[in-house]
């Protein structure tokens, strides 16, 4: 037809089309009004848009409210140990480049008990999409101070208010060598949330998205304040950044031009505690990827392997 031969007809029709419902499983048991629900919905939408084969998609999480996430995805999932999602996800990806790997983690999981793994995961820069659900409180264990709780947060472990300044996950991530993608969004602006997660998925490398989450149960006032204080929010604008839709642009009227290839500018923005920047802080498409190293000598036949072992054994033969 139209002079095109079969070889040239590049429209690839997938064998199965996966509607969004193909990615949903069970009824999420998070509290009503919890931000986790909106992220779950956005991720399921992304999977459908990208037509990720459910059998080739793996959600790895740690422990905490957010880490229940894989149970609600009809894909492969790994709900492991508190703080240890990163090493598991790296192991999944290392010799399985065909798998789409996501990590869902929380502020306690990532920035406290798993902080060591977090730093190294950034440096490994494997092609994994990371969603940090930051509600600034421990929910599952019932309201203890989190490393990202603002100073003065009243909690069960600090009834008089928390006494230390919080960890700044964006600043920390930007400080690690070989960092390749850092973005921030919020759960209550679905279009920006979706655009950010999508950009993160499309980035080939370790894409770190910090999502500010509402916790109506234990951080009700803080959540309300965050949602209402639009004046402290600055939208990061750039042709290479995340493109907010018109509604988002109208909602947040402060816009900042920021080139996401400029790491120094990104760090300067991240250090400002008074403002919340939404969008892409930094992207480096050239950062070295450890998953490519992991997959570089795959697929040897037993014969090839045995021949290599035999050769090595020669040096030990008497």
């Amino acid at each position: 037809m139209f002079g095109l031969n079969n070889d040239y007809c590049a429209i690839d029709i997938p064998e199965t089309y996966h509607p969004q419902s193909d990615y949903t499983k069970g009824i999420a048991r998070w509290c009503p009004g919890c931000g986790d629900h909106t992220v779950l919905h956005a991720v399921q939408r992304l999977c459908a848009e990208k037509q990720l084969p459910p059998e080739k998609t793996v959600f790895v999480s740690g422990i905490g409210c957010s880490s229940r996430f894989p149970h609600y995805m009809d894909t492969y999932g790994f709900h492991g140990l508190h703080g240890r999602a990163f090493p598991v996800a790296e192991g999944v990806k290392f010799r399985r480049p065909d798998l789409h790997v996501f990590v869902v983690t929380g502020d306690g999981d990532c920035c406290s008990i798993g902080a060591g793994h977090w730093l190294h995961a950034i440096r490994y820069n494997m092609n994994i999409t990371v969603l940090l659900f930051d509600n600034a409180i421990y929910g599952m264990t019932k309201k203890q101070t989190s490393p990202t709780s603002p100073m003065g947060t009243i909690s069960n472990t600090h009834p008089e208010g928390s006494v230390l300044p919080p960890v700044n996950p964006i600043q920390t991530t930007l400080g690690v060598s070989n960092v390749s993608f850092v973005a921030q969004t919020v759960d209550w602006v679905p279009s920006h949330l979706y655009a950010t997660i999508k950009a993160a998925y499309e980035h080939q490398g370790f894409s770190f998205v910090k999502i500010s989450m509402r916790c109506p149960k234990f951080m009700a006032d803080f959540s309300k304040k965050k949602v209402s204080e639009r004046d402290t929010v600055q939208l990061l604008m750039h042709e290479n950044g995340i493109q907010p839709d018109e509604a988002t642009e109208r909602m947040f009227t402060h816009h900042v031009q920021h080139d996401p290839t400029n790491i120094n500018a990104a760090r300067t923005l991240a250090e400002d505690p008074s403002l919340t920047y939404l969008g892409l802080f930094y992207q480096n498409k050239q950062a070295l990827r450890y998953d490519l190293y992991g997959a570089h000598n795959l697929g040897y036949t037993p014969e090839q392997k045995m021949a290599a072992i035999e050769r090595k054994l020669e040096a030990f033969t008497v």
Partner: protein
Amino acid sequence: MENHIDTLTAAPASKTGKTTLPRHIVEIVADSGEGAQKAGTSFASMSAKIGNGVWTVEIIPSDIEPPPRTLQSTSGIRIRIGSKEVTNAGDEADLVVAFNEVAPYSRIEQHAFKPGTKILIESAWGQHDDPGIRESYAKAIADFKKRDYIVYEIPMAEECLKFVPDPKRGKNMWVLGMLCYIYLRDLSIAEDQIRLTFRKKSQAVIDSNLSLLHAGHAWAAENLDFQYEIPSMPSEKELVVMNGNEAFAFGAMAAGVEVCSMYPITPATSVSHMLAEAFEKAGGLVHQAEDEIAAIGFAIGSSYSGKTAMTVTSGPGIALKTEFIGLAVMAEVPLLIINVQRGGPSTGMPTKIEQGDLLAVLYGAAGDAPKIVIAPSTIEECFQFVIVARQIAEAFRTPVFLLSDSNLATGVQPFPKPKLKAEWMSAPIDQSPWKEGVTPFAWDEETGLSKRPIPGQKGGEYTLTGLTHNSKGQVSYLPEVNQKSTEMRSRKLAAFSRTLKPPKIYGDEEGDLLLVGWGSTRGSIEEAVDRARELGGKVSSVHLRFLSPFEPGLKDIFKRFKKVMTVEINYSDDPNAPLITEENRRYSQLAWILRARTLVDIDCFSNVHGQPLKPRYILERIKTEINL
């Protein structure tokens, strides 16, 4: 019964001073960097080649480059050769080559010498410019003589200077030449060995080492009045010579393991060194993780995705990995965990020998976490057991522990070159669609076994969780679900134990005393049993390879002996120590479990000296036990 005692007895010295012996122990001790180990491993390889039994143990300083001529700087090697298989490092050394007078003291501290031990010592220190060194040398020589060692002062440096400008480089090959004379070795084999050892060096280096070899030999022929012949029979099979950690690495590759995820820890790390060197072309990779916890997490992730992985560690690493080990048990993830044990608790003695992790490995996790634990007892078994462990891990969907220790890790022994088989290698990951209607934990009621879905298998999608889950993989805290799932994981051990045979008894089927051992102590125990039987003792031994679950039939075996005693390198209370009673005595680790398992009143003989167990010590204990 294969006898460790040779029928050959020591023949009297001939006119030339030649003595024929069934076995001999030689040590070379020097400062680190003087090549003592290179000379020793060359000598060991040559001995294996001509058909001697060989066991070597490295003597390693705990620091990288400690100040020279100190107790801490001694580096060296012990080589025990025999006309038959040598299964352990033996008792005290018969012959010692010392590059200085301080090094022997680090061995004297470890009770490595005996009256009559010949010490061949570098005499240059006696003429050193520094009067302090001259004095130290003279004092040591006098002391050695007082201890009834037989001292030979040898001008090693002086002789080497005739061939090389710096005797520190090359003295080891001169010593190798000397040893070749003493042990009547064919120099052409030594020449081949030097060419192999220095194959990456220039021809000039090889030539210089060859001339040193000949010089050492010639000097010894002219000046020494003794020679030892350890008769040998060349093996018909092709042999390989390696240590236990290298054998683990080869076993892992032969088993088709593609991922070794580890964090450096003594004495386990060298497994990963060997792998890192060979893996590239054998289709695998070593991942050096950021910590011990990440190392096992990464391995579990890899196993989950279908590439069953291995992690290699030692006691402190096991402590850190414990939570993940529990997850692997709970979520039924196949995994190989090699624990090369060291002295503990805490940082303990990183380079020393101890079998102290058995109970920690078995019971160190929260809740009920049944595990399969196996322990190789020879270098060859280190190779074979990884292949076995891999198959068990896959078939039983569980982590499998391999317990080794520093004795096997650094001990070197020849064994028949393994014939690799394609069926040992893992099959390609099953990516065929998952059978509809089958749940991710479809436990077989009788065996607890179930098939696991692997990412990529359509229709098998499930979320692995460390939370209690039902056969569908769904989280559930229902009383019957937790009871059932715990039962199913435990049942797998029972099913596995049904595949095992009763262990073989070394010696008679019944008698006065049965020694029970596990891991690296086998050679020492069996040698002690042999010696006791020579003296008329009704002693046998049994060596356990499977520690969880046990091989069947143990109680039946124990009942046939008047006394049963475990022999282990870990702590037990001396029953005669202050405050110790029958009620509060703490037993050796295997003894604890065997007592609980069999209700037999099993005693134990153990210490935490950090040293290989000397057959002589075991023999002495046997003698008191049965009034021999």
